[in-house]
Structures are given as structure tokens and as C-alpha cells.
């Protein structure tokens, strides 16, 4: 059953001449990991803002169609209440730090203080999330003196600590190195295993292919594709819609064009190795 449903949703920011979202129909089921891709300006962040209730409550603008979150229209949701249901991590690491806490440990606990979590539980949760995100070494540091990547991890930790059932994550790895990026994806996978619903905007398509259950492709404020990751990401026509496909899927398509196709077009490295081995095994 879908947890979030968008029916013919169109949205324009105040004073904007063009739609940020246009006739969008989407549904997100509980416990699934959705990857959202598309060019800059395609409407990815607006979609996140809508699901998080910031559109229309915070930004205003004109919203038409229906956006149902957990059975209630987004317009009727109290955003403060929605904040406890849906966690949100966004791009800019420098504005996600509260600026009022002197240590990372306190910064991560801020959301828990706001939720009225008892102190002992709060401490245990923060310790757990610091271990999970491998930021144990940062707990005594001043959050305002951290690098962009470190701040992004702290912001991520703060939201994970709040233990929302759904997480909307807008390009969390834009400031991270490859190791940090891999760590973040591992955490997202862990969240998925815990039954959380994850909506992740990300440009790193190879990693999305590895972890996402479903992919949504946005193009010029509209949904160009939506479906299971395996199905969507092996489609070379994604490239014509301004999205990327995994390198191995591109390789699989090229091999198919040359008449030496694999059993199926792989979208992950592991999948590609298996398909190539199968193909080579078949020839020998």
C-alpha cells in the first residue's frame, strides 16, 4: 500500500513563471528505497519539499492536484507534526548545523530534545548513531568548525537519530569523498533493512543502481520514468532524457548492439560480472 501518493500534482513557486512540478503522478510504498534522478532544475528538490510538507506550507506558491501522505492531504498536515514522521536531509551542509550547540554530540541530540526524548535514551541514541555514521571522533568538536563533508555527516546523523519512519534525502553525498559516500549508502541500506522508507535524490547513478528498489526520473518538472531500478536503469533512452545510466548498463547495451549481448543488461558491477561470466562460460 502506498504511503505517499501524488495525483496530477502541479506546483509553481511564488512569482515563478514556470512549473517546478507538472502533472506528476507518483506513489511511494512503505519500506522501499526510491532513487530520484534527473538534470538540475528537473524538480527533484521541489518533489522532496512537497513530500516533506515545505511545499506549500513554507514556500507558498500554487499547488494543484492531490498529495496524500499517510492518508492525509499535505495541505492538512501540520508541518511540525510531519517533521516527526518524515526526516529531511538536504544539500547544503553549512546551513544544516543549528549554530547553537558547542559540540557535535549536542548537535545530534538537538532533534531529540525537541521531540522530548528522555535524557538517558537520548544519550544512547546519539552514541548509536555516531557509531553507525563513523563520526565517533567528532563528538567533542565544535560543529561550526567542521568541514562541509563532516557537517553533512553530522546533519545526517541528527536526522537518523530522530528515527523517523521515512527519510527524504536530497543529495547527501555532494560534499563527501568516495569513502564517505560509500558509508552513507551503506547506512541508507541499513535504514532500508530496518523497514524505513527512503527517498534519495542522487546523481551517483552506479550507487543508486546497487541500492535502490525503484527509480524515478524527472525531466523538466515531469516524471519521465518510474519503475523498478533494474527495469529503468537498463533503458538507454534515459540518456535522451538528461539522466545517466550505470556504466555497466551502457556496456551491456553496446554489447547488445554489437550482437554479443548478455543474458540481460546488468545495472550493477556484481550483476555485470555474473552476466559476463555466464556469457563466457556459455561460449567456452
Amino acid at each position, binding site marked *: 500500500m502506498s504511503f505517499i501518493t501524488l495525483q496530477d500534482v502541479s506546483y509553481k513557486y511564488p512569482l515563478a513563471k514556470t512549473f517546478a512540478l507538472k502533472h506528476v503522478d507518483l506513489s511511494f510504498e512503505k519500506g522501499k528505497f526510491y532513487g530520484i534522478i534527473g538534470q538540475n532544475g528537473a524538480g527533484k528538490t521541489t518533489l522532496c519539499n512537497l513530500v*516533506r510538507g*515545505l511545499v506549500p506550507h*513554507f514556500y507558498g506558491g500554487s499547488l494543484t492536484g492531490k498529495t496524500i501522505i499517510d492518508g492525509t492531504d499535505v495541505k492538512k498536515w*501540520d*508541518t*511540525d*507534526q510531519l*517533521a*516527526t514522521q518524515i*526526516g*529531511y*536531509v*538536504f544539500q*547544503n551542509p*553549512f*546551513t*544544516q*548545523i*543549528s*549554530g*547553537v*550547540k*558547542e559540540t557535535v*554530540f*549536542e548537535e545530534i*541530540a*538537538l*532533534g*531529540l*530534545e*525537541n*521531540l*522530548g*526524548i*528522555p*535524557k*538517558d535514551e*537520548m*544519550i544512547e541514541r*546519539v*552514541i548509536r548513531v*555516531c*557509531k553507525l555514521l563513523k563520526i*565517533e*571522533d567528532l*563528538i*567533542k568538536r565544535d560543529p*561550526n568548525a567542521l568541514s562541509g563533508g563532516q557537517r553533512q555527516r553530522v*546533519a545526517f546523523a*541528527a*536526522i537518523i537519530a*530522530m528515527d523517523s519512519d521515512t527519510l527524504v534525502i536530497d543529495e547527501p553525498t555532494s560534499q563527501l569523498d568516495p569513502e564517505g559516500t560509500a558509508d552513507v549508502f551503506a547506512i541508507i541500506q541499513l535504514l532500508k533493512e530496518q523497514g524505513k522508507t527512503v527517498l534519495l535524490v542522487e546523481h551517483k547513478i552506479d550507487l543508486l543502481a546497487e541500492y535502490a528498489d525503484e527509480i524515478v526520473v524527472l525531466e523538466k518538472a515531469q516524471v519521465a520514468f518510474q519503475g523498478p531500478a533494474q527495469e529503468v536503469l537498463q533503458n538507454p533512452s534515459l540518456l535522451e532524457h538528461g539522466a545517466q545510466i550505470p556504466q555497466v548498463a551502457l556496456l551491456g547495451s553496446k554489447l547488445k548492439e554489437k550482437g554479443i549481448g548478455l543474458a540481460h543488461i546488468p545495472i550493477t558491477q556484481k550483476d555485470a560480472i555474473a552476466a559476463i561470466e555466464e556469457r563466457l562460460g556459455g561460449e567456452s
Partner: protein
Amino acid sequence: MDLDFAYSFKNPQLYGNWLMDVNPLNKFNFCAVMAAVGFILPYWWIGYAMMAGYLVLAAIAGKFGPFFKMFYKVFLLVGAILFLMRAMFTEGTTILFSWGNIHVTVESIFYGLRVAGTVVAFCGAVILFYNITPMRDLMYSLERIGVSHETSYICLASMQAITDLGESSKVIMDSQKARGIETEGGLISRMKAFIPIIGPLVLGAISNTEEKSIAMDARAFSAPVKHTFLRELRKTPAAEKAAIILIDIALVAVIVGRIIWL
């Protein structure tokens, strides 16, 4: 992970210095009384005695350096100007020396000392309070007595915003320099550089405020539940409460005495 640090939040946060550990509201009470006393008592030396006391208290709190760094500037600037103005332009009978129409008298010197001492002592009380009271402790104490956490956040975030704006202005200045805009040199060059710097700075600050409010929203800042605190201060000891009550009674006594004496 430093678990000792993590679990230290289970206990009230202490600085290990009795003055620093005094409840912030009691520190405020004390400093407010000190500031008021300077205005109430008519003696010229009261302000200077209080300044000496502030220096001692700042040293006890381990904040002598930061306190003195701020205080001596106020002492030299505000104190000196007030003293000179009063000493030169207050009428008196015992003239010490004259310079044109300006007559410096014994009375004007004592009046100048009193006014300068009182105002500088008032400023000293504010500076002392600022130095011995971490802002977050003050806001915690205010929240405990019912001030909204929104107000508390605005106060604390404003302090951080000053630092952030300073850093942003440096970044913008460097960017504008890279574009060939002169930001250094004489007064005219600096004034010309002001416009291309202030625009991006203000717009950036507005944009950051918007994102910051979204970030706080994501942290359930306005969640309709009673907030809890990770970092808590100790309960005020009975002796401290008694001392503050005595100080307040002393202030009332001074005010009453002054009224009767007048």
C-alpha cells in the same frame, strides 16, 4: 568513542569553578545589583571600588584576560571622555587651572570622577556578566523559567550569525578581489568595494536564514511536545539562593537608606 564525554551529560554540567558554576540568573541578579549601586550611592570612589571588585571576580572565574581586554577599552574611551567633559564643563568654586573659558575646579574633577566611575562600573558589570556567563547557560536557565525555546534559539543563533557573517564577508571579499574589484587601499577604494560586498552578503544571509529554518524544522524544532535537555546545569544550592536574597535585601536597604538620607 569518548564514552566518558558522552555519559558526562547524565550529570549536571560543571565548570569546576565556583563562580562559573553559579546559576546564570543569579549572576545576572548580582551584576544588576552592582550596576545599580553605582548610580544610587553618591560617593565618587564607589565605581572604582566596584571596578577593582570586577577584576578580582573575573580572575576568580578564570576570565581575567578576556574581561580585561574588553574592559580597559571602555575604561579608557568612555571613562576618559566622560571625565574630561565633566571636569572641563561643570561649574565649581575652587578653580585649579583655567584654559580660556574652561575652568577646571576641584568640584568638577570629583564630579567627573563620579560620573565616569559610575558609567564605567555599569559597563564593567555588563562585561563581567558577559564573560562569566556562557550564553547557552543563560538561555538554558531562561528556558527553565518559561522563556520559549524559540526566543532562546534566536538569541543563540544571532550570536553565531555574527561570526558567520564575518566569515562570509571574507569569502565574498576574496571572490570580488578575484573578479578584479579593489577592496583594499585608501578610504575611497574601500567605500567603492562596500557595495559589491554588501549585496551578496545580505542576499546570502537571507538565503541561509531560509535554509536554516528548514533545517530546524527538520529537527522538529516546533514539535508540539515538551522539550527535554541533554545538557543541564546543577540545581542552585541553598547557600547561593540565600546569598542572592541577602544581596537583593542589601540593595533595597541601600535604596531606602538613600531616600532617608536625602
